[in-house]
């Protein structure tokens, strides 16, 4: 019998635990040319803000050892164009749609989520309270437990479907912020967003990014992400979505063993656009080999010393 890849988060069923990570698949249009989006558990859009954003000037990405730095700057079409131009395409896709929301103030998050509440095909929102690449909002909220709790609670009043709070790793204890999100009424936690980093060109003595610093992602951050998922799994009751350098089915298994119910695939999409399809196939093979009937049997089953 084929192992069951379905997982459930906040009462909502997903075809498999593989989601795209925000900012790594646009609004799904390009990725749909690579493979049918129905192969994903969910597509997570890039961050949507109230007004359109052009983003930072180039260069805004740089390669690092086993990863990348980016300071795209939340370039996006804004909520109005998202609903009129981008959502109709996503509504036709046979996958869960999770819209990532960012803002420079609490009122911006609330307004965007209020409008998304009127779009029934948006299954969940993911609150990006953790982007390191904007001057206002973003990470400032996500490093402060009180602000995090308040913004989740405020969004809770206007968005009636599940809310995911996306954690920044750039804090002393991610568990405290996760508990604050739980207290505010979040239904799930996704973690981690990128780690703040930079890189300097030794010939020009200039940073490789015009924003001077950026967010580090890719396999380089996987051990940090795993430790943080483990930490949050042991201090909240919320389902977790693991993010950070996931490239292979083994990576997915690791994240699920330390407590993730699902995972998001980000930077790996840039290197292998069909990574989720390949990972799903390998994950099925892994479960067969381990004689497991369901992928959920992995969740939190790490055997610690």
């Amino acid at each position, binding site marked *: 019998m084929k192992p069951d890849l379905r997982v459930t988060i906040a009462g909502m069923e997903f075809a498999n635990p593989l989601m795209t990570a925000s900012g790594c698949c646009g609004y799904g249009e390009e990725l749909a*040319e690579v493979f049918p989006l129905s192969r994903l558990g969910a597509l997570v859009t890039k961050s949507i803000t109230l007004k359109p954003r052009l983003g930072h000037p180039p260069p*805004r990405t740089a390669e690092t050892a086993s990863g990348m730095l980016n300071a795209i700057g939340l370039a996006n079409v804004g909520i109005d164009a998202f609903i009129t131009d981008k959502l109709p395409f996503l509504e036709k896709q046979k996958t869960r749609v999770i819209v990532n929301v960012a803002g420079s103030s609490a009122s911006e998050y609330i307004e965007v989520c209020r409008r998304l509440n009127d779009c029934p095909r948006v299954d969940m929102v993911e609150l990006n309270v953790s982007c390191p690449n904007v001057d206002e909002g973003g990470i400032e909220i996500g490093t402060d437990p009180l602000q995090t709790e308040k913004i989740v609670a405020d969004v809770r009043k206007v968005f009636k479907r599940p809310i995911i709070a996306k954690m920044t790793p750039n804090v002393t204890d991610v568990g405290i912020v996760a508990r604050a999100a739980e207290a505010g009424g979040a239904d799930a936690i996704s973690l981690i967003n990128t780690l703040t980093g930079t890189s300097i060109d030794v010939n020009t003595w200039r940073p490789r990014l015009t924003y001077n610093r950026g967010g580090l992602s890719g396999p380089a951050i996987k051990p940090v992400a795993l430790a943080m998922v483990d930490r949050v799994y042991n201090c909240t009751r919320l389902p977790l979505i693991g993010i950070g350098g996931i490239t292979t089915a083994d990576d997915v298994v690791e994240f699920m063993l330390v407590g993730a119910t699902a995972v998001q695939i980000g930077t790996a999409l840039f290197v292998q656009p069909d990574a989720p399809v390949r990972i799903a196939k390998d994950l099925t093979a892994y479960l067969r080999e381990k004689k497991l009937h369901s992928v959920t049997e992995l969740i939190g089953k790490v055997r610690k010393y």
Partner: protein
Amino acid sequence: MSKYSSERVPVSRVRHLSPNYHSLKLGPWSRINECRPGQFVHLGLPDSEIYFRRAMSIAAVDTGSGQIEIIFKVFGRGTRILSGYHKGDVVDVLGPLGVPFTPPRQNETCLFVAGGVGFPPLFYLASRLVARGRDPETIEFFYGGRTSGEVVERQRIRQLGVRFHPVTDDGSFGSKGLVTEAVEKYLDGHPVKRPRMYACGPDGMLKAADDLARKLGIPGEVSLEAPMPCGFGVCLGCVVPLRAGGHARVCKEGPVFQIGEVLL
């Protein structure tokens, strides 16, 4: 099969054109018939320390043997590793990607403006035009480099029969000066009927070519290069500003843009 499925392809021939310039033939590759001049491939280097793919313009296509050729200059870690590849080594090829050049109309004269490592896509375009029956003498092929060693594959260009105008900054080969200066000087002395420009090269050269074309009212296209994590439009890492406002993705809306379209 999705057009974004990558394929492991062997290196079938290696040539070192100069200390810095190298040519690799890759193949057989199943996508060979889909390639158009101006497009690029995104090369993954399996089993290397290089994480991202590297965008490489296509320099030549041999549909008979199913091989493409890339010609590149060593700039950083990725190209250095690639320059050490041998026949039989394997690369992971994604593509062909991006918008190709628009072919010229029959009555147009082509002004090719190549600078250094901007040469490969223009060589592919010229080869294809000639192979499809265009009179090679309607192609003015300007090709500039800093020194003689930066103007590679001269013999192959000459074999096409195009009107070859080599230029070097130091005058060690061809005429002395900048390639765009040579184009302007040539046009001064030789009125060209219905010119159409195709330019590819370093940023400064592209800006000068774009400025010149706009000044003289010459239509045409420029081919850009940018750091490109994904190559298929999702990461937004390779954007360039447009003259009309906003950004365009070099990998998706480009790498070929109309003269005057991009704020260079």
